[in-house]
């Protein structure tokens, strides 16, 4: 006779959906599901800005040194220069021995800013936005794992910004991801003044070497009801400042229900950050249509603001495969990156 289980059925495991009811208590994604490392080896994220590392790497540097890219020719200094680097064409034309300089190939330093404010602890389709953001950082991390490249992280909590030092290698990247996954979940209505603008500002102030900066957030400012794309959001200026010295990628994480409001009757809605609380009749089709239109306009504003700041824009949704979305972005990025990340004109960089 088969054993009968008499214990009452416990509350069903809702996964990430429980974040609609209360703040989640742990990450909704395990470390080994963040990104398929092997599949990403064949992809490479295009880096167009010049690096100023101190190790020999795979990316174009800013200063002369041993490398693959040729720079100006200069007069040969006996005893100092290698005769193998003689530029014979210039020497013949000028009758003065010249050598051809090269620009050093440098390693890449990537810093990722992860927004973990309470509004990121939300998701209806298997993962919370915060964990989707960590997965995006993982994917970008594996895409930039070339010789000597370093990867560092900033975790933006409402009260402080935690910094994970940049180190190179796969194991260091795994450590960083584990640290992000195990970062304690921020409670709703936690005190603190850090908003995205302040986080980006802190990242720009880091004054690290030039490199790639990844900003992962939902780009929602609490209480910002502006929908007009001509009005700058408060994080746009810091983002542009960050883009002066760095190549910036913005990863916007969105949940499907932030764009399409569901029809679930009359419900009480509260905000995890502000003290917003209101009964909303979601059965009202006209109101839902208005909201969907407003949400689309809001996303369009975010897209335009990111583009205006000269940053790359990856839009990820919790109900879609982020690896596929990022891979598609990387393929298109190969053609557009050079245009997109042109250094600002008239500014000393």
């Amino acid at each position: 006779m088969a054993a009968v289980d008499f214990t009452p059925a416990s509350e069903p495991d809702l996964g990430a959906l429980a974040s609609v009811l209360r703040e989640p208590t742990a990450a909704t994604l395990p470390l080994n599901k963040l990104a398929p490392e092997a599949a990403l080896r064949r992809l490479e994220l295009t880096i167009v800005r010049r690096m100023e590392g101190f190790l020999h790497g795979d990316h174009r540097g800013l200063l002369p040194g041993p490398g693959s890219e040729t720079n100006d020719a200069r007069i040969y200094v006996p005893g100092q220069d290698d005769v193998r680097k003689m530029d014979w064409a210039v020497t013949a034309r000028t009758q003065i021995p010249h050598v051809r300089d090269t620009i050093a190939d440098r390693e890449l330093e990537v810093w990722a800013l992860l927004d973990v404010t309470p509004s990121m602890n939300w998701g209806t389709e298997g993962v919370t936005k915060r964990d989707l953001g960590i997965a995006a950082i993982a994917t970008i991390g594996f895409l930039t794992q070339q010789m000597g490249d370093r990867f560092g992280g900033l975790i933006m909590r409402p009260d402080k910004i935690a910094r994970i030092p940049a180190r190179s290698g796969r194991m260091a990247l795994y450590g960083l991801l584990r640290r992000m996954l195990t970062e304690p979940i921020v409670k709703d209505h936690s005190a603190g003044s850090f908003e995205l603008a302040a986080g980006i500002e802190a990242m720009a102030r880091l004054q690290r070497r030039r490199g790639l900066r990844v900003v992962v957030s939902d780009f929602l400012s609490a209480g910002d009801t502006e929908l007009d794309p001509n009005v700058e959001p408060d994080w746009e200026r810091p983002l542009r400042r960050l883009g002066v010295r760095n190549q910036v990628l913005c990863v916007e994480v969105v949940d499907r229900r932030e764009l399409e409001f569901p029809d679930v009757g009359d419900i009480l809605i509260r905000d995890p950050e502000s003290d917003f609380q209101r009964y909303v009749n979601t059965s009202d089709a006209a109101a839902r249509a208005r909201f969907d239109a407003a949400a689309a306009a809001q996303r369009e504003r975010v897209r335009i603001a990111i583009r205006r700041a000269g940053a790359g824009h990856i839009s990820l949704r919790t109900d879609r495969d982020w690896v596929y979305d990022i891979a598609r972005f990387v393929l298109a990025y190969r053609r557009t990156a050079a245009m997109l990340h042109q250094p600002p004109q008239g500014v000393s960089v």
Partner: protein
Amino acid sequence: MNLDDVFLNPERLWWWIVVPVLVALYIWIMRRKRRTGMRYTNTAVLGAVIPRQSQWRRHLAVAMSLASLVTIIAAWARPNGVERVPRERATIVLVIDVSQSMRATDVKPNRLDAAKQLSKEFVSTLPPKYNVAVVSLSGSPAVKLPPSTDRGLALRAIDGLTTQDSTAFGPALQTALAAVQMAPKGDNGEPAPGAVVLLSDGANTATESPLQAAQALAKAKIPVYTIAYGTENGSVDLDGVRQRVPPDRELMQQIANATKGTFSSAESAGQLDNVYKNLSSQVGFEEVKKETTAMWAGYGLAFAVVAALAAVSLGARWP
């Protein structure tokens, strides 16, 4: 007022304790709301786009259901109301002062003629089944008309009143009591309820205590409706001497209080007319205790219907 008089089962009113408990519970749940709502991130745009829902229907539903609870518990305790039922039959004794002071002319044409005229009108407004008796109030009060339903006799008896000497309240009240007892008994053998209307303009001049006679009337459960008639500065010439004849309001008030009647004062013919009109509605009806459960239950039903409508308008998704 005793609670037992108002409710037949006042102990059931203890259930009213439930109401403040429910109110406290409601407030507590409102406080807890923060923990029960759905979390949502994009509330700034949501709040700007979706109109604020007014909350009054929600509170109305709760308030109305509580009000309905209160009234239904009250109905369950079987409340008594007072209802005015027209009297089938009664004996009204009209005691009219005929002392010399009634000759005073502060009420036109003089006090007695005006009182006669208005008393006749009063008598003719009484229901036809009522017995009317007329007693003259003077030094030697007399029953001018024993209780009778014949209005013609009553009018003639009032017309025939002439002034006499002195004013004796005590004997007059006793005469009125005797007149009430003269009334024929009804079909069930009980005498018709009686009432005395006492119209006087002067002070007591007899030695008998009027209040003692009033006690006798009170024992017989006959209310005395007293009317102080005339003005403070009314005067009359008696044997060539001018005498002031103000009414003794204090005494009249005491008589009325002792017999659970009412006191009123009339300084002119118009005021007397009003007093008579009030009296005819007072003596024409009797107050009967009656269970008003149905009325309270009806209020409860009305509240419950409003509460139900408010709740339905909140929750229902109309097709």
